[in-house]
């Protein structure tokens, strides 16, 4: 009887191995070949556009999570720092502060290391979220290993467009990551899988998700401080959600509330060392017609700095 079982066991193992040889695709092939293929495809792709002004910009819908197509079918442009597939967006003209979360999933030992470029109304770059600002995020049972960054943009003349791409320097890099199996083993107190952690190549294509939300709908820091005014805004916007983008054009944002003391709030934020909040308040004050608040804050910061 034992011999029979051993025979079954061994033949099972043999079958598994043979079946593997016959029909399975070894992992190494699937991982490396597409990386090279996408790089080659990128090298052969033709530039979609002469200038940044002619990129195919899509309107950005705030409050949604969207998966960006960054494969070999995506448009390609020769950016200043290298050729790349990209996706480009026109930011809403609401001038409300937006929080963006960009995540790039690691799959098959590959990841797209994104750079985010913000352009002004004249399509000139004004801000950049470089690829090294993206943190490695470990798998946690709810999401796999990924690169991610969260950043705030207040659309306006200086921030009218956004481009997600990957520059040549970033593509030379790699990201070492933990497999979901390893994190699972740690969480369950199991022996960790042996061997070094895998390394993901930075590739020309990848899976990137862009989430955006209004800082006000997210509540966050501003709601308790801005109080009723903030509430009024969000109520109006909820009631007429479709008209939201058009409603708050730059000129319409000048209706000010005289009883709201932005400078006092900024002082409080500075006292709490929350410069980010202070800057947001200044931006908001400017939009509400308190012109000069930004300059006043800059002066305050200058006097605070050593």
């Amino acid at each position, binding site marked *: 009887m034992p011999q029979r079982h051993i025979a079954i*066991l061994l033949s099972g*193992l043999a079958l598994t191995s043979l079946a593997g040889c016959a029909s399975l695709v070894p992992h190494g092939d699937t991982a490396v070949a597409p990386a090279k293929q996408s790089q080659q495809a990128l090298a052969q792709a033709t530039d979609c556009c002469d200038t940044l002004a002619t990129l195919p910009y899509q309107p950005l819908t705030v409050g949604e999570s969207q998966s960006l197509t960054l494969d070999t079918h995506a448009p390609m442009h020769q950016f200043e720092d290298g050729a790349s597939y990209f996706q480009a967006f026109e930011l809403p003209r609401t001038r409300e502060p937006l929080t963006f979360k960009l995540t790039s999933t690691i799959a098959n030992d590959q990841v797209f290391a994104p750079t985010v470029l913000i352009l002004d109304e004249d399509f000139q770059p004004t801000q950049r979220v470089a690829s090294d600002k993206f943190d490695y995020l470990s798998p946690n049972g709810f999401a796999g290993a990924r690169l991610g960054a969260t950043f705030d943009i207040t659309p306006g003349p200086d921030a009218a467009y956004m481009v997600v791409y990957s520059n040549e320097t970033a593509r030379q890099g790699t990201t070492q990551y933990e497999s*979901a199996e390893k*994190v699972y083993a740690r969480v369950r107190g199991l022996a960790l899988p042996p*061997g070094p952690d895998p390394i993901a190549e930075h590739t020309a294509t990848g899976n990137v998700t862009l989430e955006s939300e209004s800082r006000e709908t997210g509540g966050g820091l501003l709601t308790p401080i801005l109080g009723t005014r903030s509430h009024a805004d969000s109520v109006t916007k909820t009631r007429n959600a479709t008209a939201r983008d058009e409603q708050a054009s730059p000129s319409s944002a000048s209706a000010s509330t005289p009883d709201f003391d932005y400078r006092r709030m900024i002082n409080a934020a500075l006292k709490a060392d929350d410069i980010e909040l202070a800057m947001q308040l200044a931006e908001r004050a400017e939009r509400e017609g308190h012109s000069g608040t930004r300059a006043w804050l800059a002066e305050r910061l200058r006097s605070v700095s050593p």
Partner: protein
Amino acid sequence: MRDSRQFTRRPLLAALIGASCVMPALAHADINPNFFGYARSGIGSTAGGGSQTCFKAAGAPAKYRLGNECETYAELGLGANLFDQQGTSFDFASRVAYVTAQDNDSESLQDADNDIALREMYVTGTNAVSGLPDGSTLWAGKRFYKRHDIHMNDFYYWDVSGPGVGISDIDLGVGNLSLAWVRSSGSDNDNFPDQGQRLSDDTVDIRMTDIATNPGGSLQLGVDYGRASTPEWLENYYDNNNIDYEDGDKGWMGTIEHTQSNWFGGSNTVALQYATDGIITSNGNAVGRPAGGLVSQDGDMWRVLDHGHVWLVQDKLDLLYAAIYEDKNMDDDSGRKWFSAGVRPVYYWNDIMSTAVELGYDHIEPQSGVSSYNGEDHHVTKLTLAQQWSAGRGAMIRPTIRLFATYAKWNGDAYEEAGVANSLDTGSGPNNVDFNDTDGLTFGAQMEVWWGS
């Protein structure tokens, strides 16, 4: 230029320590708790009436688990990085496990079949001992210690968890050396008139891991030596009553394991184990620790197993598989041979929905002295079909919510009488198939989740 990005395993939480600071600012450290855990729970019924029966071959240490788990089980863990400075870090971890029969809403954890257990409470000090290679970790406290399991049938084939102390992952170049002293006390209720006399069962665990063998492959070697540490007064008692404890209270186990990564998108593990006498766990699936309680357990055991995970079609179809042969040859003929094999292919319809099938087979060939279950050869085959909704694709991706139907077939009567096993084990949940049934069908729903990082 390669701009390698190294991840940080745990958030660096120690307080900001200025360059001029001489004293570590531990008192001001922020605690950033790490919440981790695992849970499963659900509901099920047996066709023909009654709540879900779970099918496990009597005498087998494990059963194939998909659509075949009858309890709510959870582990809730809390830990924190408490110190991280100049390459040395200290981490704390704790874990409490809960199990209930999932019979109703309010289930007391004191009732039969329900339990709450403190499973982990320990501190690790990475690079705490100077002079050792980078990564060496000193630890003390009770913990899950480098457990080796087969996920598909929840079988832990190398598990010496318990209170202990050790130093792990000393990089010797050829591999990593780990040394541990752990405890799994037993009680000698059979031979000692005052029940609950504890036998201090100590195990010394020595293992070399990460021995590179071939591309993507590594070898692991381990030796466990266990003995019951008996106080003098207890030995006197045994001597006076002619109880043989010398042979039974010791035992050792050797393990050779090879793991192949980059194995068709997953990994394969093959292990060979040999164990003697007191270190053979008589029942249950936590093998590798002393028997505890049994002062006289003589015999030997060997086991060979292979298990793994492969992608048959990348991102579309994967497969968990396992095969085990174990021969437990006890001098009092209470052992058995166990053969087990199972596969779980899962087809992913999209990122969320998948269909899983699990086919499992267990065969038990008892020795002549077995009386607590069917003494003849018996076997159980189970087949489960499950529709699953998960947070992604892959065998270990959770959370998952699944609807399942499980059919099982076995030879011989299911039970001898109420609560007494024959071909089916009686301790795996409600026994709601008839005594003389030779097959059964169950259906239900279950969630499974793990989290943490």
